[in-house]
């Protein structure tokens, strides 16, 4: 009953807010010939764009950078990344700096339409004037690409943009990242990058029923494109403690204690590998402080080999034939950790990440050096993968056996392979 009342109240608030605030003015078009940018501002904007992972959502698979078209599945339907190249007709070529800043800070496009928070303006709203200017300069200095935006496929009532006015009233907190005078300049810089530009919480903080990050559960772990995004705070189940150094290694390429990034985190690391080192060091310093665990709660890497073999003899056999060649060599294979138990995903609340990796393997992003793992989707059937997944969980995690492994394998197999 309270839920129903809450929902009615919420809809009423949203509707009222929509009526009052739903009109944003169009910002006049600005012709591209009016713009010139200093090369160092454009360069810095490029670093900012890498730190904000703009290309991740605004580039389609095999598409031109920033020309949009990438589908992003959300609980409310599919949203397509838009064209943010300076094409006058289909991109943001006619956007002035003021129009760009309004989109980044208020989530309103040049024409006055409210933007969906899949575009993380709840983070970008905290960006400084200088950084917005650099990002704008970088994007406007890209080659324009003519690529019309795809229409979002959202369920009613989420397809109604004016409702977003209510969403913003509830959830959009403007203003700078909160600072802590007791912390170092590096930590402060890292906090700004993590909370504003790099929007780590967009995946690593759980979201509520209206798709907003739950502020009281900051960094408790969340979701990214059907992958589990691990916690970045004390609730992290990683058996190997994180340090500034290991975070830096991980964020830059690969860490011997924890392995490397996979799934939606892989393009993040590929982007961070391209920018000046001190930015990644700052991010690592800040995240190390949010992850910090008291020493007594440190776990160790489990290896319950005997019990796991007894519980899953078939899984043990399959592991010996298909996995052990690389994963039981004491880390002699490049980009392979000594024990699979070091991977946080083995200790996660559900088996999705492990299933994704076994089915589709790991390919380093084009042009980068990193872990390669073959895909087993065509080699192993669902039952065999289920045996391996339960064996891994039983052997390397002290946690309870995952439920519904077979169902998750079948579901993930049915999905389109990620672009």
């Amino acid at each position, binding site marked *: 009953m309270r839920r129903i009342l809450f929902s009615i109240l919420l809809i009423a608030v949203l509707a009222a807010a929509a009526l009052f605030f739903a009109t944003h003015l169009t910002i006049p078009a600005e012709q591209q010939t009016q713009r010139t940018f200093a090369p160092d501002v454009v360069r810095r904007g490029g670093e900012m764009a890498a730190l904000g992972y703009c290309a991740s959502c605004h580039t389609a698979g095999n598409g031109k950078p920033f020309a949009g078209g990438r589908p992003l599945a959300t609980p409310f339907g599919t949203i397509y990344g838009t064209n943010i190249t300076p094409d006058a007709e289909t991109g943001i070529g006619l956007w002035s700096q003021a129009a760009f800043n309004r989109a980044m800070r208020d989530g309103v496009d040049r024409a006055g339409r409210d933007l969906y928070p899949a575009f993380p303006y709840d983070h970008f709203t905290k960006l400084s004037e200088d950084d917005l200017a650099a990002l704008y300069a970088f994007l406007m200095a890209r080659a324009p690409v003519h690529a019309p935006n795809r229409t979002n496929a959202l369920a009613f009532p989420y397809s109604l943009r004016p409702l977003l006015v209510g969403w913003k009233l509830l959830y959009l907190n403007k203003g700078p990242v909160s600072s802590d005078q007791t912390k170092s300049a590096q930590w402060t810089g890292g906090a700004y990058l993590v909370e504003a530009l790099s929007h780590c919480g967009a995946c690593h903080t759980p979201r509520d029923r209206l798709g907003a990050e739950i502020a009281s559960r900051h960094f408790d772990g969340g979701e990214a494109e059907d992958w589990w995004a691990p916690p970045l705070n004390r609730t992290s189940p990683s058996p190997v403690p994180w340090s500034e150094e290991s975070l830096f290694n991980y964020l830059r390429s690969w860490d011997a204690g924890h392995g490397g990034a996979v799934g939606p985190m892989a393009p993040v690391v590929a982007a961070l590998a391209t920018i000046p080192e001190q930015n990644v060091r700052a991010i690592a310093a800040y995240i190390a402080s949010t992850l910090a665990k008291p020493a007594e709660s440190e776990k160790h890497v489990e290896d319950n080999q005997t019990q796991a073999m007894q519980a899953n003899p078939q899984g043990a056999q399959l592991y010996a034939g298909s996995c052990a060649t690389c994963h039981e060599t004491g880390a002699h294979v490049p980009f392979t950790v000594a024990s699979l138990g070091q991977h946080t995903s083995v200790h996660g609340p559900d088996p999705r990440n492990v299933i994704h990796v076994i089915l589709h393997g790991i*390919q380093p992003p084009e042009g980068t050096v990193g872990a390669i793992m073959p895909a087993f989707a*065509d080699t*192993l059937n669902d039952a065999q993968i289920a045996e391996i997944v339960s064996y891994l969980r039983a052997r390397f995690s002290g946690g309870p056996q995952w439920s519904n492994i077979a169902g998750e394998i079948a579901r993930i197999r049915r999905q389109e392979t990620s672009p």
Partner: protein
Amino acid sequence: MIPLNVNGRLHEVEDEPNTPLLYVLRDTLELNGAKFGCGLGQCGSCTVVVDGKPIFSCLTPISILQGRKITTVEGLGTEDAPSPLQRAFIEEQAAQCGYCIPGMIMRAHALLTTNRTPSEAQIRDHMNPNLCRCGTHMRILAAIRRAAHAMQAADATAGPREVRP
């Protein structure tokens, strides 16, 4: 004893269930087409086709292959009567040292069996897991395109085609 269906023939092998298929092919059945490259599923020289799909035989224990159809390069054609794909590889002189070629041919075979008209992007995407250290990739791609054309032409004269994975 594990029954293995290789190139249409049934073999009963006595190897351990978690022995990689590659070792059984080469050592037990003396089918030496598939090669040991890295043993880690990273180079593709051990590629064979199982139920129409290319797999790394170095990472596939024979225990999971009961009732499945295995095709190796020996199952495609012979020296005197090469398959269209093998003929195309010869005509393009796609091999330098040749070590990767059986794997390349088998991966390409899996593609052309289901898609006679692959785009350049589809070919490159599909062939991505297989490496050639001599660097003959451009000739390998040319051979696959040539084989695709030859197979299309053969389809056109032969009428409806029987799909054999």
